[in-house]
């Protein structure tokens, strides 16, 4: 009221009183917006409800300006109410950031929070949204471990591994049983919240729908208390805004191929290596040795004179397409009146597989409808509905890259006349389009309904409610039919048509997940004496999650014509069915209080009281508080004299968070059906208990401490954001497997709250933004470091002190230390070695000096496949209508072991990489050999095959051109932009040169990530 009084004497004869509300793009009232009559110094600011009142003459112009938002000007006509929605200015540092259950302006942020805008993400043509996040957000580690269309596997971590995985058999991506929701739980995974609901489809969202992605890395995640310990990824989708309708259409077409296919041995080299191995197995006889492949045969493999009997098959070359396509169409319409705002979005993605004669194909439809309506002045409601149709098609026989890369090159893939040969096991991948398919229709529907009520009697008090219901239906049809192929008959010289004798089999699986989440919040916001800004929010949330599945199987179909269960044999022995169900729930209370003085001294308190059904009664609830504070030095008088400082802020936070990512029911002694036996001629049912109960199981606790410095200097020429953090994780749910003797005979031990891990690191962002003439450009560099240390894990002291896992980062492996290979008999004789080691084998160092090579000579490396340093560098250039973005991503201090390289020349006739074969030890290449012999002996994993996984890659590049307005306005278009972009364009790897350096540790036979080159156009009208 005070401003109104102050300015009330400014009255003109033709002036009237204008009033209205200023809100942000989410409809939240903006407090303290400057409202000025253009060309004068007369003005006012909005009150705690975003309301203003000003006297202005007809014909004058009102300008609304607010830090972090684009200014708006409105001409005053006959109207007396002017409501304004200010749009955030994304080019400025002071933008709005989505935090848990709300938004905050970046300037008053006290937590360690990174953010990326949707626009940035769409510059990557990847189908998988998560891969587009790699390198974009300091502190977020994204590694793409394989590239299967529609089911790419990614490791996503925030600040690395801070807890331990008590299931040692867990292999990333090895989802053995899709019907067991707890089969694979990585306890280090962050919580992903999409539009306020923990949801698991991040990778499959339409990038065009994304408004922003925020990562809560520090104690500010305590508002997600129990599940926030590994950090939280908050995804916010776009919504409509008031204004004329905007219609946006984009189309892009891309070609893609795997980034790197390991070069495999040709038939002649393969045959030689196999012979070498066999010679070793037969005791290295000087004479009397008959090689498996004769010299003559090897010669024929080499000269290619007989492609039928002595082929030289390049299997990857035969099977992997030179390139395949990917196309995307997006349509988006948005707009709104002063009462209603809408956004409609449709996206279609069509990705072809990279293998010839293979049904692998991925289609994705995304549809989103969002509407927000102001029912009354104080009540508004909204709905946000998102349907995703994922259609994944693969071959009925899983083709893995093992089957392609390791195929025996002395077998024919395709006969010279074009007929397809059986390959090994009649498993030639080129036949797989003949043997049925494995189709999954995965149709999740995500719905959110919101209501906001601004209590009219109490200014600043608002009530929010949301109800979310997600329904995901998945139907999988696995259909396998016999495969026909041709085989060359040596005796007749004919190609016999053959058919595999497997029966026709069909397995239909139906899976259904439902999640319902209800959320109710009260918030209050006020300003006292202009300088004291206070806001508070408290809420309650309940979530329940259910899963069920059923499966039907039949075999011995009379004909392959009808792939339906009923068409199968009705013999009981040919039928099978299975099914199951699971459910879980959460109940919690949370709140936040913010106080700031003149936006200079900032204080925030958040809490969550969280209940998880994973734990027994009495242990279910946990309280997770966090406090954070900031000091904006740039607002202090003593610094305002330094004009080059636009922003300088110190911040710190401390809090406790929880983690409950462990299997359910560990507190119950219970039995499951199974472990059947047979008495007489029939099955006798069995029961078994798979785990001992732990009746005291409860939350894992994480204590996080962060300090940060944010600076913006010389008006954007240099910006920096530095965060250092420390985390202490305790009560880690960990199994005592290491210390409990197996003589006790316990089944799997339950998780107990015993482990302790420390984690520390930093994140640094540097940015530079400038304009020189018509060229404006920006450089944003970020790097982050995180290192964990196991403090306690119930480890039995190992034989040698250098083997302890305690004191090392999570995931550190145990390896034999090596020093090249034994090149000569003298070298071998003069150094301790195990009885099976021969000349040409890897030289294992006798670490403990006891002259015996055994497990005690293994040492614990500090190295895990999870990188300690990750970095990203974004370069943006804008020149007239052209824009260019280059984005580099990299990592270091990550190590990757490759056991596939150890299996060389063995009886299974698997091929191996040229890298492994080059300069290997043979009886004719001894002294200078650097690689071990064929069929080499290793007592276990050695650091010989442990590689530094450092790499830098040009992850994305985009060149765009915006057609001149003159041109497009003639055809009634608002904006037309054509672009070409690419992903994974260039890679430099330090040691891992024979495969993509990002592949998961272990082997090189994964489906590599894709290199994509994409052409597109974006039209707005």
């Amino acid at each position, binding site marked *: 009221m005070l401003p109104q009084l102050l300015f009330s004497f400014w009255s003109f004869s033709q002036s009237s009183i204008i009033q209205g509300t200023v809100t942000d793009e989410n409809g939240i009232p903006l407090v303290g917006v400057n409202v000025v009559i253009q060309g004068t110094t007369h003005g006012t600011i909005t009150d705690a409800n975003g309301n203003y009142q000003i006297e202005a003459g007809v014909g004058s112009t009102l300008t609304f300006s607010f830090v972090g938002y684009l200014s708006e000007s409105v001409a005053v006509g006959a109207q007396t109410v002017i409501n304004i929605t200010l749009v955030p200015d994304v080019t400025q540092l002071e933008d709005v950031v989505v935090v848990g259950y709300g938004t905050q302006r970046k300037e008053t942020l006290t937590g360690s929070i990174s953010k990326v805008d949707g626009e940035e993400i769409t510059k990557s043509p990847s189908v998988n949204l998560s891969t587009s996040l790699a390198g974009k957000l300091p502190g977020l580690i994204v590694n793409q471990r394989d590239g299967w269309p529609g089911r790419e596997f990614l490791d996503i971590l925030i600040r690395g591994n801070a807890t331990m995985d008590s299931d040692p058999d867990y292999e990333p991506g090895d989802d053995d049983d899709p019907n067991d929701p707890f089969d694979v739980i990585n306890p280090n995974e962050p919580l992903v919240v999409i539009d306020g609901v923990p949801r698991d489809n991040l990778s499959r969202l339409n990038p065009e729908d994304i408004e922003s992605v925020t990562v809560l890395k520090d104690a500010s995640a305590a508002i997600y208390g129990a599940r926030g310990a590994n950090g939280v990824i908050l995804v916010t989708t776009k919504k409509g805004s008031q204004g004329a309708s905007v219609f946006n259409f984009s189309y892009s077409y891309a070609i893609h191929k795997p980034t790197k296919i390991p070069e495999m041995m040709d038939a002649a080299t393969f045959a030689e290596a196999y012979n070498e191995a066999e010679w070793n197995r037969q005791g290295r006889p000087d004479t009397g040795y008959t090689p498996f492949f004769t010299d003559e045969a090897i010669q024929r493999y080499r000269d290619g004179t007989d492609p039928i009997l002595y082929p030289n098959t390049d299997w990857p070359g035969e099977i992997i397409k030179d390139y395949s396509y990917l196309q995307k169409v997006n349509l988006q319409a948005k707009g709104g009146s002063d009462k209603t705002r809408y956004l409609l979005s449709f996206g279609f993605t069509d990705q072809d597989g990279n293998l010839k004669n293979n049904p692998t194909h991925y289609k994705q439809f995304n549809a989103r409808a969002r509407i927000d309506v102001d029912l009354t002045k104080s009540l508004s409601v909204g709905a946000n509905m998102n349907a995703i149709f994922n259609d994944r098609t693969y071959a009925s026989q899983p083709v893995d890259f093992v089957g392609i890369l390791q195929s025996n090159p002395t077998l024919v893939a395709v006969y010279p006349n074009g007929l397809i040969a059986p390959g090994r096991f009649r498993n030639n991948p080129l036949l797989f389009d003949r043997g049925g398919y494995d189709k999954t229709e995965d149709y999740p529907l995500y719905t959110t309904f919101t209501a906001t009520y601004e209590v009219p009697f109490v200014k600043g008090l608002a009530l929010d409610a949301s109800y979310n219901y997600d329904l995901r239906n998945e139907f999988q049809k696995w259909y396998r039919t016999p495969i026909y192929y041709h085989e060359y008959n040596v005796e007749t010289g004919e190609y016999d048509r053959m058919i595999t004798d497997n029966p026709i089999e069909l397995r239909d699986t139906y899976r259904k997940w439902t999640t319902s989440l209800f959320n109710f919040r009260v918030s209050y916001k006020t300003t006292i004496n202009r300088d004291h800004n206070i806001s508070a929010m408290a809420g309650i949330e309940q979530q329940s999650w259910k899963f069920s599945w059923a499966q039907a199987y039949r075999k011995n179909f009379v004909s392959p014509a009808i792939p339906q269960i009923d068409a199968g044999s009705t013999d009981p022995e040919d039928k099978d069915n299975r099914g199951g169900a699971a459910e879980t729930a959460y109940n919690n209370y949370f709140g936040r209080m913010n106080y700031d003085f003149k936006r200079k001294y900032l204080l925030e308190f958040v809490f969550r009281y969280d209940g998880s059904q994973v734990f027994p009664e009495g242990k279910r609830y946990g309280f997770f508080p966090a406090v954070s504070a900031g000091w904006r030095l740039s607002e202090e008088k003593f610094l305002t004299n330094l004009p080059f400082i636009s922003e300088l802020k110190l911040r710190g936070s401390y809090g406790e968070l929880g983690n409950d990512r462990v299997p359910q029911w560990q507190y119950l002694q219970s039995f499951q059906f199974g472990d059947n036996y047979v008495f007489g001629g029939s099955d006798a049912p069995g029961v078994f208990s798979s785990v001992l109960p732990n009746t005291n199981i409860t939350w894992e606790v994480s204590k996080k401490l962060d300090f940060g410095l944010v600076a913006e200097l010389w008006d954007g020429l240099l910006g920096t954001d530095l965060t250092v953090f420390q985390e202490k994780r305790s009560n880690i749910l960990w199994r005592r497997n290491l210390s409990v003797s197996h003589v006790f005979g316990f089944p799997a*031990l339950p998780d107990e709250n015993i482990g302790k891990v420390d984690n520390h690191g930093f994140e640094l962002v540097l940015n530079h933004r400038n304009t020189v003439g018509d060229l404006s450009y920006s450089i944003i560099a970020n790097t982050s470091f995180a290192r964990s240390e196991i403090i306690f894990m119930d480890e039995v002291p190992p034989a040698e002190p250098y083997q302890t896992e305690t004191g090392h980062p999570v995931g550190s492996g145990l390896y034999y230390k090596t020093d090249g290979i034994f090149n000569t008999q003298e070298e071998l004789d003069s150094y301790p070695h195990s009885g099976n080691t021969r000349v040409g084998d890897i030289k294992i160092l006798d670490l403990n000096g006891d002259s015996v090579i055994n497990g005690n000579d293994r040492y614990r490396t500090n190295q895990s496949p999870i990188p300690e340093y990750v970095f990203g560098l974004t370069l943006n250039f804008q020149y007239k209508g052209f824009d260019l973005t280059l984005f580099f991503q990299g990592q270091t201090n990550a190590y990757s072991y490759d056991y596939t390289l150890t299996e060389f020349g063995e009886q299974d006739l698997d091929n191996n990489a040229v890298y492994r074969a080059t300069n290997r030890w043979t009886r004719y290449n001894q002294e200078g050999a650097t690689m071990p012999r064929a069929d080499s002996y290793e007592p276990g994993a050695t650091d010989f095959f442990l590689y530094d996984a450092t790499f830098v890659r040009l992850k994305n590049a985009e060149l765009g051109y915006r057609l001149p307005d003159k041109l497009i306005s003639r055809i009634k278009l608002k904006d037309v932009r054509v672009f070409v972009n690419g992903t994974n364009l260039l890679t430099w790897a330090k040691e891992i040169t024979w495969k993509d350096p990002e592949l998961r540790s272990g082997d090189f036979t994964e489906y590599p990530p894709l290199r994509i080159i994409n052409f597109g156009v974006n039209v707005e009208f």
Partner: protein
Amino acid sequence: MPVLLILSSISCDRNILDISPQDRISDAAVWNDEVLINAYLASLYNAIPHGFFIHMYSKYTDEAYNSAPCCCAELFVLNTYTPDNISSMGGLSTEENWCTNFLYYWDRGYFYLRKVNVFLEKMEETEFELEDKEKLIAEARFVRAYIYFELIKRFGGVPIVAQAYELGEEVEFERSSFDECVAFIEQDLTEAIASLPDRYLSTDPNYGRATADACRALLSRTLLYAASPLFNPTNDQQKWQKAADAAEALLDKGYSLYPDYQELFKLSHGDAQDEVIFSRGFTTSNGHQAPMHNFNRRYEAYGGWWGSNGPSQNLVDDYDMVNGQPPFLENGTVNPASGYDPQNPFLNRDPRFEATILHDETVFRGDTFEMWISEDGTQWGYDSYKNTGDNPRTNYVLKKFMPTEGDFNWQTIFTIQWPYIRLAEIYLNYAEAKFELGDEATAREYVSMVRARVGMPPLPESLTGEDLRRRIYNERRIELAFENQRMFDVRRWKIAINIENRPIRTLDIYKDMSTGIKRYVEVVLLDKSGTYEEKMNLLPIATDEIQRNPELTQTPGW
């Protein structure tokens, strides 16, 4: 506003966290339900490892040429097993250990021992009325005895655990002596016998459960092991006497040798026979794929994975000629009295050879098997190792346990039973014990009874002393081939140091394409010399397990 309040009252559920599991049963329910108690007992039988997992134990010894390049079995190619890697041959569940057949039985054994002990304790506590409680207890004790036997034959004396510990209890386990373990087994079995029926006919719905005769048979085998050189260094004759008595106890129980040796290994539960005393049955819903794992590539099978279960020449050479003479003398030269023709090696052999091993020119299921290679090396038969790595390199394929009719593909679940203990073994146990007690005549008699079933002539009375012992050993090798016995037999006889250091051999078959004449050339496939050490007669305990138990001693020598 009222809308919000209504919404919140509908949605807020005070008991939202009170969920019961939908896929499991509570502990209390199990022990108060006769069906579930029986189900618990049924699952205990899975403690006893059968031989139909992917790798048969044959490839861990000289019955087969182990060409497995990976997946645990490779540890036995050149005896590279150590305390550091042996646990990769173990694991608790079948899924964890799908390939190794629980050779490292330590974890699995104690895991099931606890289950048995829980059962026995619950049976003692419960007031729930059970009609045949004593019988159920006896069955559990039989399983417990079997587990201990499986442990001691691998590790020697092991810690005896006769109660179920709870999490958090502090116990320092140490090994009991081998003899103490045998005494424990003996006690379980003796007491179980009292509460069990002698036998169920093989057509009975209960066939496969523990019986008094199964207890006696297990006792016979256990006591034979206890008397053997590895476990009886002083050659205590009383131990041989006990072994002989235990075998003798089964001689008059109405069992008889099944007339057809080959047919015997294709029987399922429910098929009439009087030979198998204890066996593991299978059904189509609880069956195995052993034929597909072990047969060669012809029916898309894997030959034991990478052809790694191909019978070795070492075994083939040990089949006598039909005239009763071994084809080779002790020094390895051809026995002139046998009539063996190296260029006609498969002619006139002990019929068990044809019943067990499939070779070049064998007609099986209407197909003639061809393992030859042309003299110039450019052509080969369909079953030759040259054709695919899933045809065993040895040019031999396992025939025992292979169905001669019905479907033979990966979609078929096979129900052929696994014979744990059969009368022929009891005869051989008896013969061996009697021989060691000096009763050579009885020894010859019982070996000859086993031979007589396939029409082989009896052992001549001139056969005596060390020669007779060798023939007794050999008879066991032949009769029980591929039944997971050889590996442990050569160890308990302490002859493994010789056997396991011998090269694995085969015959390569070269065919002159113009004349069709075949030539047989012996080749060494795997030089194993110096890889087997005396300490390997018993398996080491995994390094971690030793570290967890300060009082537990490692197997001697390891």
